[in-house]
């Protein structure tokens, strides 16, 4: 794997990459960005747009720290490229407090002690938002399953699950 990556990276870059105009809705606002079509969405958000709430924990879709919502479904910003956002509706953790449900997720994470180092937390909160929006009837095991794509190295998950169970019960 290592060798392959290095070979790919070793090919000198061609002529200056053409940037494309990509229009989408970001946290409720229509935006137009100039980016190369293959720019990773995580880089677009963090580096180009200054939205550093979404974190990169692995870059390979394994940890969930970059979880965002695209057209209402959870997606991993490290596995998407800019062109895929054309015409879509994107929500990042920066918009968490824009909805009642989002505020409840935020407050429950705070009051239930779901936050430690906080680096997985934005992605976890977006995954939590998705589950309580889509399946407020979800019980504790179902919530565990819904969050199983988001790795946390600090908590042992107990207080995260507590928080989401609490929000789900409020949403029912």
């Amino acid at each position, binding site marked *: *794997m*290592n060798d392959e990556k*290095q*070979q790919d*990276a*070793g090919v*000198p*870059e061609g002529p200056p990459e053409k940037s494309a105009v990509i229009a989408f809705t970001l946290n409720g606002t229509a935006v137009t960005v100039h980016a190369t079509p293959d720019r990773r969405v995580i880089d677009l958000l*963090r*580096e180009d747009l*200054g*939205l*550093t*709430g979404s*974190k*990169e*924990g*692995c*870059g*390979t879709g*394994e*940890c969930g720290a970059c979880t965002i919502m695209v057209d209402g479904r959870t997606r991993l910003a490290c596995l998407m490229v800019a062109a895929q956002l054309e015409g879509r509706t994107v929500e*990042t*953790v*920066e918009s*968490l*407090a824009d909805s009642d449900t989002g505020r409840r*997720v*935020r407050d429950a*994470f*705070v*009051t239930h*002690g*779901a*936050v*430690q*180092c*906080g*680096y*997985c*937390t*934005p992605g976890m*909160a977006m995954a939590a938002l998705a589950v309580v929006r889509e399946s407020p009837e979800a019980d504790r095991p179902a919530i*565990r*399953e819904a*969050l*199983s*794509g*988001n*790795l*946390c*190295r*600090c*908590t*042992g*998950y*107990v*207080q*995260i*699950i507590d928080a989401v169970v609490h929000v789900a019960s409020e949403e029912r």
Partner: protein
Amino acid sequence: MDPLQIGQSRPRGDAAAKVAGREPYAADAYPDNRLWARAVRPGVPSGRIVGLACDAALAVPGVVKVLRAGDVPGSNRQGIVHKDMPVLADDRVRCCADAVALVLAESPAAAAAGAAAVAVEIEPLPGVYDLDAALAEAAHLVHADRPGNLLARATIRKGDGADPLARCDVVVEGTFTTPVQAHAFLETESGVARLQPDGTLWMQVSTQSPFRDRFEIGHALSIPYDRIHIEAPCLGGGFGGKDGATVQCLLGLAALHADGRPVKMVWDREESFVAGYKRHACRLHYRLGARRDGTLQALHARIWYDTGAYAHLGAEVMELGMEHAAGPYRIPHALIEGWCVHTHNPTAGAMRAFGVCQVSFAFESMMDLLAQRLGMDPLALRTANALVRGDTNCAGIHLETSTGIKACLAQVARHPLWREREIWRRQAPPFKRRGVGLAAVFNAAGYGGGVRDAAIAKIEMDPTGHFIVHNAVSDMGQGNSSAFMQMAGHLLGQTADRLRIRQPDTRTAYPSGSSSAGRTTYTFGRALTFACETLKSRLLNRAGLMLFLQDDDDLVLEPDRVRHIPTDRSVTLAQLGAMMSAEERVCLGQFVAPTCKPVPDTATGFFIGFPHVIFSYSAHLARVEIDTLSGVVQVTNYLAVTDGGHVINPAMFHQQIQGGVAQGIGYALYEDFITHHGRVRTEDFTTYIIPGALDLPEIVSVACVEETEATGPFGMKGIGEVAMNGPLPAIANGVADAGMGRICRAPLTPERVLDNGVRAPATAQLQK
């Protein structure tokens, strides 16, 4: 809103910002006009550098510079105790992580392309990749000046050493193996740096030791300490892996060559796995002797730590393990021998529980073997031998501080998870077996002898009458800064909204050591209590002046004001803030953690870090269910009862315990950092498995406050590490209890469980 109180379960001060994605981490800094730095790591574990050509790399569009060892202005060596690790290797490479060049480029992609285009020619040299090879006669030496590939060789001898084993009624024996563990924090090693116009090297970095970083950088790059300015924002996890130089010297070097432009470096996950520090793999051989009634008599432990290519804190890790090698038990005679062995594997260093979780596996497995041999209840055997205050531990230290293991065990004994274990075990569904395992563990707090464990805390009232705690010990997620706010609020009678924290900055805070060793909240917190008390009395005094009072009697500090109780007159803190000079509004407090005096002559070969005098204790219980067809072990319930002295904030206490248990369960069942001939095979989260939400049980944490720790702030002691020590032995004991045999090699993978269970059902047999 009420003033903050010690003992309150309350949300952390940083939680709301973190959930919303507003907390700024080092990895989040994207300064304008930045360059990107990327290390060139050839991946050869042992060899001589014979050629390094950078022309092709410099021709890559966007590559600005390629630096090599000759561009490093200072010693080009880093290391906390032994300066043996090159920033950029000049002659030899000793592990696959060694960097030989540093590429500066306009973008990460250009930096990666440039790094791949650096042509490195390395003549391979023989390598030693495991303990046996490294210790073999005439083995290739990782460092020419470390004969036998030994970084350290030490001994603890208490009483008559191992001799009494020959006279014991019963002796049990076992050999154990533990894997390399990766910290796997979610925020990889990262930072930004810039050479300021006045010549200062400024750096914002994900670090557990901002003040020590100045020494590392200053030594390696020949920069005066006062010209190095480090800021340490909140870390996205540390666990020991950011204690010591990671990106610091590389970033500093890059900044020196960046013509004043800021430089950013973020290791990707693969680089973090390859180049980050690791937990030591260990081999442990134990012989434990007891009387027929279960009274422990003698221990002979031999422990080998694979410390990898460079020293880091390898010797200190081994020493701490040796100091804990006999468990939290009273054993009159002990011989504990340790070898800290260099190999060409990635460098092992500090990680939560620092050498102790390895020995915990061995001694707690031995206790169950002994209980089985004697036909004794494993809990009763532990309780009968548990240390109490006034005992002498295996290192020969007379325990004069809080010692709560017996109380922890008593709480486990009363818990339904223990009392109802037989019924639960019998209810195992078809093709499943159930078992219940125990572990009694402990972990020292503080740096130990020979290193001053000290902190200087600073509290400030700003001109508007709000308070700033100048934290000097990084918050890597454990919540020490929230604990400091709680302490300050409690002592100053202030509400949370009147307090804020400033994260470590070497220009505005004072050297207070690293965030590590279960000493962060303890040492800095105690210093902070002194600072707050000084500030409080000063505020009362100044208010008394303004109120024309003869003395400070009957003045109280309240949120927003100082009030004179008899007359109900008051001065607001804003008025005080406006009256007092900047200098007057700042108070410092200092504390040095207690040390052992006199040091017993039990240990030889120890340099620093021995002995310790304060320990936290914990009794753990794991209920495990094993699928007899697949060998998969599921932990269905977990209980951790912990003596951490008085609890500052119960919610944060349980966070630390649950998180430590989670890492411990990962260590027990899944985590196995694999190298083959010195090259990393597990470089992503697909091959290196850390527990997810479905892998862990509802972890129950109980605080056991038998006695408070008199030396700590508000009677607390550090509990960040101890929880890591219980899960591996508790789970291994649970698997044995389920009749799947005793497994002495971690992690307990399905293959090992199945193989062991089939070969040796229901009997204790040692797996070599």
